[in-house]
């Protein structure tokens, strides 16, 4: 019996380090929280500067790894749609009945000049494909215990060479992000202001993104509705629907 207890204690000591999450495990868990098979969302991007607020509203659908459709509903952009598929980006401007197909660098561009890229609207995240991760420790953000991660870009194709992320130790939601140049100069900061519970996951509802180089200017991403259990019709991601 004593041999068995000794063996169990020894096993616990040996296996304990394996239970602690590595930086890569945390990044994978973080990506998993933000990955949906299907989703439908409605939201708005509000930009505030010294002249006031600019508001763009949208509806978005996503399916699997690559497919997403965004339809803008605010007055100035009403009816403009963006369809992203694997390796292609289709833009539709209803007033000119213009269908534009783009490939290459256009896929990485931001949506409406905001901090949300078209890639951000798609289903799968694979941060480790573009970044190496290092765990710096833990810190409290608004009373929540967070892993502090440092991500360094592997390629030049990403927008931010360096990222510092505060990832919730329980929900793996990113509460705070700092995005910097390779030399460490801070470019922008992201902070989650409000969260929502969706299908057992904690996700950002209101996030603020501020430009470190521009005072009195910030962008707020507000998700009014998010459904990740919805069965999205594959016909949504077709040219017939895009040009409708």
């Amino acid at each position, binding site marked *: 019996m004593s041999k068995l207890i000794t063996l169990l204690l020894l096993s616990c000591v040996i296996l304990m380090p394996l239970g602690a999450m590595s930086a890569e495990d945390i990044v994978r868990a973080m990506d998993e929280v933000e990955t949906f098979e299907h989703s439908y969302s409605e939201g708005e991007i509000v*930009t505030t*500067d010294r*002249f*006031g*607020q*600019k*508001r763009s509203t949208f509806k978005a659908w996503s399916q699997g790894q690559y497919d997403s459709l965004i*339809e803008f509903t605010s*007055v*100035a952009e*009403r*009816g403009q749609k963006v369809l992203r*598929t694997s*390796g*292609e980006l289709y833009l539709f*401007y*209803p*007033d*000119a*009945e*213009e*269908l*534009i*197909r*783009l*490939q*290459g*660098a*256009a896929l*990485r*561009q*931001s949506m*409406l*000049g*905001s*901090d949300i890229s078209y890639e951000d609207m798609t289903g799968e995240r694979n941060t480790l494909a573009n970044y190496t991760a290092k765990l710096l420790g833990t810190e409290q953000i608004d009373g929540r215990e967070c892993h502090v991660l440092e991500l360094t870009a592997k390629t030049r194709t990403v*927008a*931010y060479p360096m990222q510092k992320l505060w990832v919730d130790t329980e929900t793996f939601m990113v509460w705070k992000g700092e*995005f910097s140049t390779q030399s460490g100069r801070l*470019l*922008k900061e992201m902070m989650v202001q409000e969260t929502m519970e969706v299908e057992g996951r904690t996700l950002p509802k209101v996030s603020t993104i501020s*430009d470190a180089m*521009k005072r009195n200017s910030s962008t707020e991403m507000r998700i009014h509705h998010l459904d990740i259990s919805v069965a999205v019709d*594959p016909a949504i*991601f*077709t*040219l*017939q629907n895009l040009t*409708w």
Partner: protein
Amino acid sequence: MKRFGLFFTLAIMASIGVLFAAATPVVDLQLYHVFSFADTDSDPEFIHLMSPRASVSFKSPNEGNVRGDLALSFSYQDSQLDIGEDPVSVAVDRAYLRVRFPNFRLTAGKTRVGWGDGVLFNAADLLFGSSDTAVDLTNQELRTSTKWLTSVTVPFGPFSFVEAVVIPPEELDFHPRDTVLGGRIYTTVGSLKVEFGGAYRADSVGSVDTGKVVSPYVSLQGNFGPDWYAASSVNVAYPASEIAEELEESWLVSGGLFHMISVGWQGTLTLRLEALVRPFGAWSAQASNDAYGILLYPEVAYVPNESWNFSLRSIVSPIDLSASITTGATWNVMQGLSFHGYATAFMGEQGDLFSWKANPGSPSLGVMVGAAWVF
């Protein structure tokens, strides 16, 4: 066309009250100061005028299987221009109904059908034409003309469809032979977009029917780092004796390159270069300069953030070394409100396609400063 257009415009204006109840109107109001300088052989001419323009669009909600869009535009030409027409004009820019059936889609009304690729030059644009240089480079969209038409689109895959178009004659005293018929197939082959089709119309001199013209085209789009696109079209005429002559006059080849570069963490630099080639066009400078063998359209736009946009657009005629150059800046200052500034200059000698010496309707130098408000 004018009588028909006026009747239709009045009918639409009478129904605006009903439309207000059914759709949310979107108003685009543009007010510009226009300064122009014309270097003529006699005294130089300076003009300063206001150029107001407004458009009202009524779009049906994007719900169900029926939708429509009605857009009217109003513009005012200052009497200084002495254009000999009513200074106030009202036009129907769009007025169409679209119905989605289980296997096809029907569109009827005044709208545009976008064939091929190209911001300025597009040999595949058989139905509306994208080969002339009489465009306003200060407009965001350079080719926006619409026609009364009916089209049917039948999908055969997520990114493939067949389209048929009928464009009736625009004159009231029309003859059925003036109807234009068109069709195209749009699909992808690997990473390549392939589009081909054609248009059919009767050819006439005045009221005399002189034969038939079939215009086939092919358009391709792909990526090798930058995006690229190319198209070619030609008229195949009947009777056969005119085939060679028609082919030489009508053969168009267009192509373009487009690339976006991230600048900083939010800025974007976009580069575009388009070319229009007429293989049997004029390849040396000459007095009749409307069919030069090659024309170029370079465009550079820099968007540092969501508020500012700087652009440089030009139409270049390499044969006679002349160009029209437009540079502009846009400041999106508040919700829907933007300030714009443009300067356009014509560079070239008298008789060139673009000339500093003023031609009727095109000054040597023009500056536009103003604001646009969308609400």
